[in-house]
């Protein structure tokens, strides 16, 4: 037990100030304001359901990273949940495969209104190099917007955790 506690204290708090993570002037106040707004509107954290509708798992690795101590998304009032019924936002990676099309539609329909959809990655957004590789074919419907309405796009192959944070914030701001 003592080595464990010692390690926790030695590691300290690693969470970066949002300036470093979001890399734009005045963003810290912006994030604080958004946190307040999210709390005002919802009275709780913004909840996110991630749906992998056909990615290569690259985007998922970066979405995992959002919850590490450096980015600490959950500590900033954004929580990943297990059911779309508990979610305010769907974070969808693509290209949407035909075999996942129905499951994605069901997840979307299960998410209570008003809901936000963020498309993640070049395949999910239909842009960049990866889109040329993964555009529509017999097995895929193409980008997320071909299946459900998308509010914000986060391109990248895969997008960095910082870009993902910016995208999630941008989606919240739209409301």
């Amino acid at each position, binding site marked *: 037990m003592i*080595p*464990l506690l010692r*390690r*926790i204290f030695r*590691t300290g708090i*690693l969470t970066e100030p949002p300036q470093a993570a979001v890399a734009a002037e005045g963003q810290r106040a912006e994030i604080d304001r958004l946190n307040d707004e999210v709390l005002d509107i919802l009275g709780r954290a913004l909840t996110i359901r*991630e*749906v*992998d*509708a*056909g*990615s*290569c*798992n*690259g*985007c*998922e*690795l*970066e*979405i*995992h*990273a959002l*919850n*590490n*101590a*450096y980015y600490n998304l959950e500590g900033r009032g954004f929580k*990943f949940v*297990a*059911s779309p019924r508990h979610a305010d936002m769907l974070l969808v990676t693509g*290209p949407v*495969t*035909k*075999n*996942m*099309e*129905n*499951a994605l539609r069901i*997840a979307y329909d299960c998410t209570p209104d008003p809901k936000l959809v963020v498309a993640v990655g070049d395949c999910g957004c239909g842009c960049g*190099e*990866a889109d040329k*590789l*993964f555009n*529509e*074919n*017999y*097995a*895929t419907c193409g980008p997320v917007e071909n299946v459900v309405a998308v509010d914000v796009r986060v391109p990248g*192959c*895969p997008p*960095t955790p910082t870009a993902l944070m910016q995208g999630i914030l941008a989606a919240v701001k739209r409301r």
Partner: protein
Amino acid sequence: MKLLDEAIEFTRQEGAGAPVWVGSTASGDELLRFAIAVHRADGRIAALWGSDERHRGGGYRLHCVFGFNEGHACVSLDLPAEDPLYPDLSGIFPTANRMQRATRDMVGIETDGRDQRPWLRHGAWPSNWYPLRHDSVHEVGMGVGFPNLPSDYEFVQLGGEGAHEIPVGPIHAGIIEPGHFRFSVIGEKVLRLEQRLGYQHKGVEHRFIGMDLAAGSKLVGRISGDSTCAYAWAYAVAAEAACAVTPPPRALMLRALMLERERIANHLGDLGALGNDAAFAFGLTQFMRLKEDWLRLNAQLLGHRFMMDRIVPGGVVVDLEPSALRRIVEQCDGVGREVRAIRAIYDEHPGLQDRFLTTGIINADLARELSLTGMAARATGIILDGRCYRQGYTPPAPYNMLGVRPATDERGDVAARVAVRFNEIYESLRLLREMAVSLPAGELRVEVASVPNATGLGVVEGWRGEVIVGLQLDNEGRIARVHPHDPSWQIWPALEHAVMADIVPDFPLINKSFNLSYSGVDL
């Protein structure tokens, strides 16, 4: 030359890759006899796929890659254009079952086996249309207009008092890829697990057709994002063998350096997640922090957090300066110290060990039966690592100069896979330090001029196990067929066995201890 005293004639593939022999036959019986000989020699089925050769004046062709002590043997079986039927190999190698069903769905060549359920085809295209047949590829619209129909799947059902099913997926509770698991349980006890995959099927093999080698390299790096270096390297080996090119020594060592960094990144992430799945959040926090540091250095020195598109046919596109190599060595020292300290905490934590020990057991006999490779096989005590010397086998450069020590553990449970992952981190850290001081000078890349109608096969020991890429060029030197094979094909069925004696809440832990790829097998 002959292999294993069988009739099929083989030739050794040239190039810098792992030892590969290539042979062909027109007799299904010869293939069957060779498969039995491989099985007797404690070998395994390593990959299986089909191709349409009708536009070249042939019929269809089945390609089987077998692994045995000395390396890999790729056997092609020519099949007639009418009624292309080949002998069922799943009686010898049970894990051939899903590969054969996928091959039927994609190319339309069939076995006489009993299990004829579709595998990759759900309801997105009709059962008499085959995406990889030459006429489908050149069809207007290429099958985009088919209605996406709901599909049913015949799961094996268990009866009896108190037995019931728990369907899980395709969307899982966490941030993971989609797939369906059907548990048959009594109370908490798992009687049977059956997987249904294919949800990630995005027609990757179809997309390769007609690409040039450079575009194919980008696509192959996105088959499974966590193994991008392993796939890119295996593809490069196949392309280099096909085009008779040898990459420069510096490029080979930089490839190995990236592959080992990929291995460590994945082990770090999974060791953290394994702690978390046993309600030990401390482990997740600590390991995810180490992984983030690791990925950030990748981005700084190699230009991409996961090192996508750094390995290309002919060599690599990124170089490391002496100062960068020093930073890698420093990071290895730091991470090594930290991982050792956290391992001591893991090992002494009674709650964690209680969950890890005796959970999800696979023994060595089952591992051989299911043709397992990689960390999953080594955690049953099998000494099988493509990077290591063994009697009769020389690893490919640069591993032949590094003296890699395989990490094994005979227990076969989650604890064994955790131990193997820890030991592989230590070994890969040692390799990184050694490569940083012994990186040869010279070119990074040689030109690869595409050779029409050439073929090649690449085998690379990725962090999950053997990643195999088969490549075939057309008469203009563009890609006619690429088949990427993920080790998860064989390990997924092992997971069905591993959970059988355990309870439902242990499943996430057992699953994470393997952390298999969905995208890599759904293609």
